[in-house]
């Protein structure tokens, strides 16, 4: 059996060269928490691994009032970083509730996005924050809104020669909340999750984001439910109405964590709670 090749470049241009020349054969390796279990059970036999942990993509910096986060930054760093707490608390919270501490030490934010798992915990908060992703190749840089990144479960718009290098979080207004439900508090990928951001102006909701996770093959931005909140005084009755609308916008499936039936019931409660929390009701 032919075994894999391994590359661990320290320069971004060397990584991009490899991807340009042999992108289709290369498996990008970050923390390995999604990939290595597949190696262990021989589900995946890569031709070549490109380890990106030595490229200096591990950083969190303040940028234009928001944040720039390197794709190889661990979720533990995101969960405990002061800048993230201040500028994107909803992201810090979602990172802190993901997996368990040892997994978080190695799992990266870029891996969490690129895996494009239905149950991934980083996409909902990042969508709620209007984040953008930087995809870099020898051809140059392409910056896309995160909402355009996911095509379906385990499929993104990343091209074979591109590397996800940075997650950019703009300076956005509003209060946020993230609520997730799993079978166990730690460890388990979630059954359903939601990130909410509401922007209040003169006692009314000027803008809203409601993003459900694990409720379709990609994260669901519940535009109809957002519309229900817009321009209104937020009350718990309105939260119930928006949550009911949001359920209709989701397309959950049955899997080993939960049934679609159960997910619909759970997400309704989670969305209500998240709206109430974000708007201090």
């Amino acid at each position: 059996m032919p075994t894999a090749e391994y590359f661990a470049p320290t320069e971004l241009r060397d990584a991009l060269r490899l991807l340009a020349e042999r992108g289709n054969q290369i498996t990008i390796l970050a923390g390995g928490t999604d990939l290595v279990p597949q190696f262990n059970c021989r589900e995946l036999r890569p031709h070549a691994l490109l380890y990106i942990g030595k490229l200096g993509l591990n950083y969190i910096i303040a940028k234009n009032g928001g944040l720039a986060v390197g794709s190889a930054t661990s979720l533990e760093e995101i969960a405990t970083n002061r800048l993230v707490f201040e500028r994107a608390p909803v992201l810090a919270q979602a990172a802190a509730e993901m997996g368990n501490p040892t997994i978080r030490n190695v799992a990266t934010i870029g891996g969490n996005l690129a895996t494009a798992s239905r149950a991934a915990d980083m996409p909902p908060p990042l969508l709620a924050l209007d984040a953008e992703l930087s995809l870099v190749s020898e051809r140059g840089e392409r910056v896309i809104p995160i909402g355009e990144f996911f095509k379906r479960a385990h499929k993104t718009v990343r091209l074979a020669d591109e590397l996800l290098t940075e997650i950019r979080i703009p300076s956005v207004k509003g209060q946020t909340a993230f609520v997730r439900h799993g079978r166990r508090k730690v460890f388990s990928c979630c059954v359903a999750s939601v990130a909410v951001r509401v922007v209040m102006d003169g006692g009314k909701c000027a803008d809203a984001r409601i993003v459900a996770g694990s409720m379709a093959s990609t994260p669901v931005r519940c535009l109809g439910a957002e519309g229900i909140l817009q321009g209104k005084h937020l009350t718990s009755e309105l939260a119930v109405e928006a949550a009911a609308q949001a359920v209709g916008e989701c397309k959950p499936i049955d899997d080993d964590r939960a049934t679609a039936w159960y997910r619909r019931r759970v997400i309704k409660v989670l969305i209500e709670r998240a709206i109430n929390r974000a708007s201090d009701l």
Partner: protein
Amino acid sequence: MKYVLSFTVNGQPVETLAEPTASLLDILRDQLDVTSPKRGCESGDCGACTVVVDGRAVPSCLTTALTVAGSEVTTVEGLMGDGQLHPLQREFYERCAAQCGFCTSGMLMAAKALLDRNPSPTRAEIALAMSGNLCRCGAYVQVMEAIEAVAGRKCEVKAEDTRERE
């Protein structure tokens, strides 16, 4: 293809060959004869394989061996100094915090990484740091007590503090 891998295990520099898809657990157990990390689930779910890499507790079954090149890896074999049990090992032993013992190596290393960073954690901080480590025998209570005992010795004040909160 196999690649040369150099890193430090319990203070000893080692050099070995590793396949790109081999995990750190594979290399430690099968090539370096460091058998304290246990092969439980190989999917990150149990914590029996936990080792400390550059000060952080990680599941060695999920860590690609070649990525630890140049790193410092610590396992239970490295806990003992001068023939003396590490305080965590002593407390685990005295409080029967191991029954079958399969989870114990991972528990010890997760606890060590915690105490090295935070010598006087609260009960909640201990529970969080240990939440990736499962014990089929259900020795959780003794494990918590053992870690608290070591933490308490390092900082009496904080120990009283946590007892009050219970």
